[in-house]
């Protein structure tokens, strides 16, 4: 069964809470609107791990070519990119 955006957002938030590098965020607050890079919660290595996690959970490969950077780094934006990939 296909995952909903809300389910995927929850999974991503939970993953980030468990996996962000210690000392890499100004505070531990994270929501669907959090910019994971600007907040310092993830660096590019963290994003690589997160993408692998999302691909495993969603069962689809995330194509990042031509993705808008501002959508990519927001939790709900990344989830939308994933779900668009799932539909294509």
């Amino acid at each position, binding site marked *: 069964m296909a995952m909903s955006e809300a389910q995927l957002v929850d999974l991503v938030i939970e993953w980030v809470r468990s996996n962000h*590098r210690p*000392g*890499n965020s100004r505070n531990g607050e994270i929501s669907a609107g959090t910019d994971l*890079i*600007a907040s*310092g919660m993830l*660096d*590019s*290595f963290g*994003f*690589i791990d997160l*993408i692998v996690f999302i691909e495993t959970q969603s069962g689809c490969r995330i194509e*990042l*070519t*031509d*993705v808008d*950077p501002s959508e*990519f*780094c927001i939790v709900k934006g990344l989830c939308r990119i994933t779900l668009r990939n799932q539909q294509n």
Partner: protein
Amino acid sequence: MTSPTLRLANPIVETYSRLAEHYDDEPNLHSCWGQATDKALGSIHIKDDYRLILDVGCGTGRALARLVPRAKSGVQFVGIDPAENMRNLALGRLQPFRNVQICNGSFEHIPLETGSVDYLFSIFAFHWTTDPDATVREVQRVLKPGAEMDLFFIGRDNGREFIQKTTPIFLKYMGPALLLESARMRKQFTREAAHQLFIKGFSTSELSVDESYQTYYDTLEGHWGWWVRIEGHFMRIPSARKEQCDHEVKTALQGLAQPEGIPYTIHQLHVRLRRG
């Protein structure tokens, strides 16, 4: 001139080769990386019974030039590096020494016989490996039973201050796909992950993995002196936008300035293999 669509076989190797003549410039040598390199090199001890010593990622041959005169006669040194112009500089520097060979090679492909090396060292090169598992197998292959090794390389949390400031800028100029592709060029392990990697090839009784965090403070110009080491990451930023990207990066780094200077923390891992 860099084309937006330029793809290189290995951008890191190609860029090191292209910029080789700048690698030994004073700003790089005196930078935090120059200091960390000197510290690692100073900790290397050449034992009297070593016969063949290998430097993987020898670059322009500076480490070998310091170590070779310290060794007893009869010791053979080999330096390998995949960047042609770096090797050419090493060959020139080490020409006076008849017991040194400089060869094309890398962690994944070491051009030496199985079980031939008594001591292997590498200073800030291992993180450029393209295949960590293959590297462990290749290093294990060339080492003699009872051989020793010191690998110094960067850890997972290296340069945290700079990365937080610059990642949004590189994301803007490179886009998500290129940014992640660029990050994949480096392998940055936690201490635990490095230990898990190397115990695939070596006994836990002989192997140790240490880590250290050292913060260096410098001016913006001082830090920019070592940028030559990471230019390979930015090869695919269109040249027309590179200057503006550099400008934004410099402005962001200036924002880190404290009374002591701009901080940069080197997270170093040291994999050590010693006889049991």
